[in-house]
């Protein structure tokens, strides 16, 4: 350690392009980005504004005033205001996903045919006679003598008190702990409470959208994870070794890219046996989406490897006698991981949209499972949308999620190369 510090002192002061200096600087970069990696990238309320702590400041001074790459990326990312806000939105959405059971006023399956297609109830705060407190109005339900459909009228005289952390429909938290606490709900669990309306079976739309986020959001992450592993492994081999493996992998990628996406997805999902359970189907769909997803990632990684291979610091590391895995994982991967993370973020919304489209067409997840695409299937028919336009609300959830993720991805891409 002391030896390196001394060398750094001599090296950092000069502007020499000597190979030894280059390798030394890179070693420095490698260790620093490792330190940086311990600080999680989206650490909220980072230490940049208040300035580094005294120890960190001293360490930074000793290093010649350099910050780790991740800190530079983070600093630059924060300058993109919209992306920064969008990052919080995305985090909030994933938190909502994690605690969907508690946040939902009901469950995804609890139904009440008496309230089929019940319109959204407005949440009031102040009641003239009952005073301050949350409440909703009840409906008066009449059956249309011709169509036998329920017609709902808001009954402004009725009063359904609404409370926080009330006990209602029982559920199993994360499929493990039986609970019945809901963040918000009617104090009498038998009264109707449909903030975002009800579907054809009288199930609460809001609860179903919250539960549906589980599948819709996680399928993007799982699919991207599969694409990432395949893309980095094959792209890395292709770019680092070149020659025959490269040609082979490039041909495979070109081949996969030549097959039109949607017909391929349609055909493959149609081939999933109907007898498969929801979980097996979920993974089959994810795999189908990743079949195409990894190729783009592999191309990008390969391009990075190709351009890095001829960089001075890699030559220096090779001359230093570093092993191949060390060169790849200590020298090459840290210098393009920010780019990879940026393009991963851009890939997640694409996966979410793809799953939604497949499920909307009835080829993705099937009815007992709840995802945003499955929910939108109910809104396929124009007559249904006319009766119950709130069935389009899952689309709003998709829109907000995808928009926020695109913004985050855009900000990350701008910040991925903080030295520009």
């Amino acid at each position, binding site marked *: 350690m002391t030896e390196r510090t001394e060398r750094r002192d001599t090296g950092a002061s000069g502007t020499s392009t000597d190979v030894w200096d280059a390798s030394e600087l890179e070693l420095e970069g490698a260790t620093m980005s490792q330190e940086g990696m311990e600080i999680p990238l989206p650490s909220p309320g980072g230490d940049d504004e208040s300035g580094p702590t005294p120890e960190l400041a001293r360490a930074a001074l000793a290093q010649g005033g350099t910050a780790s790459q991740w800190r530079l990326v983070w600093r630059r990312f924060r300058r993109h205001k919209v992306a920064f806000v969008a990052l919080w939105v995305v985090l909030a959405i994933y938190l909502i996903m994690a605690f969907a059971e508690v946040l939902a006023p009901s469950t995804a399956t609890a139904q009440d045919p008496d309230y089929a297609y019940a319109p959204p109830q407005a949440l009031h705060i102040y009641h003239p006679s009952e005073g301050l407190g949350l409440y909703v109005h009840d409906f008066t339900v009449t059956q249309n003598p011709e169509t036998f459909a329920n017609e709902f009228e808001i009954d402004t005289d009725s009063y359904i008190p609404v409370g926080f952390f009330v006990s209602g429909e029982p559920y199993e938290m994360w499929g493990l702990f039986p609970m019945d606490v809901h963040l918000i709900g009617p104090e009498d669990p038998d009264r109707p409470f449909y903030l975002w309306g009800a579907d054809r079976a009288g199930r609460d739309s809001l609860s179903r959208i919250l539960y549906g986020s589980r599948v819709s959001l996680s399928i993007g992450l799982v699919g991207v994870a599969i694409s990432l592993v395949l893309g980095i492994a094959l792209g890395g081999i292709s770019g680092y070794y070149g020659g025959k493996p490269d040609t082979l992998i490039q*041909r495979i990628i*070109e*081949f996969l*890219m*030549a*097959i*039109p996406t*949607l*017909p*391929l997805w*349609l*055909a*493959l*999902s*149609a*081939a999933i*046996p109907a007898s498969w359970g929801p979980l097996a189907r979920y993974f089959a769909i994810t795999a189908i989406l990743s079949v195409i997803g990894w190729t783009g990632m592999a191309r990008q990684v390969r391009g990075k490897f190709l351009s890095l291979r001829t960089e001075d610091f890699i030559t220096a590391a090779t001359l230093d006698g570093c092993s191949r895995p060390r060169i790849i994982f200590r020298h090459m991967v840290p210098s393009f991981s920010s780019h990879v993370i940026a393009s991963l973020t851009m890939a997640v*919304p694409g996966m979410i*949209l793809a799953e*939604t*489209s497949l499920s*909307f*067409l*009835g*080829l993705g997840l099937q009815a007992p499972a709840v995802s945003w695409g499955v929910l*939108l299937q109910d*809104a*396929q028919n*124009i007559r249904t*949308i*006319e009766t119950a*336009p709130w069935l*389009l609300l899952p*689309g709003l959830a*998709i*829109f907000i999620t*995808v*928009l926020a993720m*695109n*913004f985050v991805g*855009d900000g990350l891409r701008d910040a991925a190369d903080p030295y520009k």
Partner: protein
Amino acid sequence: MGKYTLRRIGLMVITLVAISFVTFWIIQLPPGDYVSTLVAQAESRGQVITPEQMAALRVRYGLDDPFLVQYWNWISNIVFHGDFGQSFAYNRPVSTLIWDRVALSFFLSVSTLLFVWAVAFPVGIYSAVKQYSPGDYIATFFGFVGMAIPEFLLALVFLWLGVRYFDQSAGGLFSPEYVDAAWNLGKVLDLASHLWLPILIIGISGTAGLIRVTRANLLDELYKPYVITARAKGLSEWKLLVKYPVRMSLSPFFSTVGWLLPGLISGETIISIVLSLPTTGPLLFGGVLSQDMYLVGSFILILSALTVVGTLLSDLALAWWDPRIRRRYQES
């Protein structure tokens, strides 16, 4: 250049053969085959097919032959006779089914494409030249919103708005009185009045994406030294912009222009389903749902072939457009 083209055509043929294998594999993937479909159809009509008849049918269609033999029968019929097989669901040859609908898909795709280009290029260029101006922010905002809305959702919302506020159905291509009418001026005008909506819906996400790409490409070029040189020479801003950076920023566009070819046939499947347009998309979707695998397989094969050809064409177009790339081809 000629040598390069020849080598690419050779590679193309290999890729096409590989694709045809995968397509045939997908056709075979679902349980059941042509004969079991026939039997199911016969049973639904109350007829009974004996096991002996079934066995005879299986032999006749060669269903128990090895995979390679079956593959050869299928592909040789396509290549030598243009026979894509029989659709189970429609009981008609796949090729006539597809050609029936190609004209409209083609028309829809071309008009959408012209719409996208006409909007996206000027907006993208403006957005890059006037970076961080209010106009750029509006274009950027529109770009992100356009990319975040699933197309089918947009179609549903338009359908709902049409019924709710304009009291007209936005689906289909013709008003009821024109559906079966012969072609005349009224029918053409009716078609035009229905077609703008699908074009708009299909075009929005493409426009949004292309605006972003054009803007990013142009921004990469705008601050390069050659632009400053041209400006120093006293070239007018407009001339300078069109002559150098815009030309450079169009290169990525040429490298994807060939992918439009499959788009011309596939139409926009999901939009066409939601708006019930009689394009090839719903046909493909119907085929997938009813496991009409010869229909689906033919689609995949035709579309893949078009993609491969399109990729080659766009590489050649790129070489024509960009002398640097042409040179690289000539060297290799």
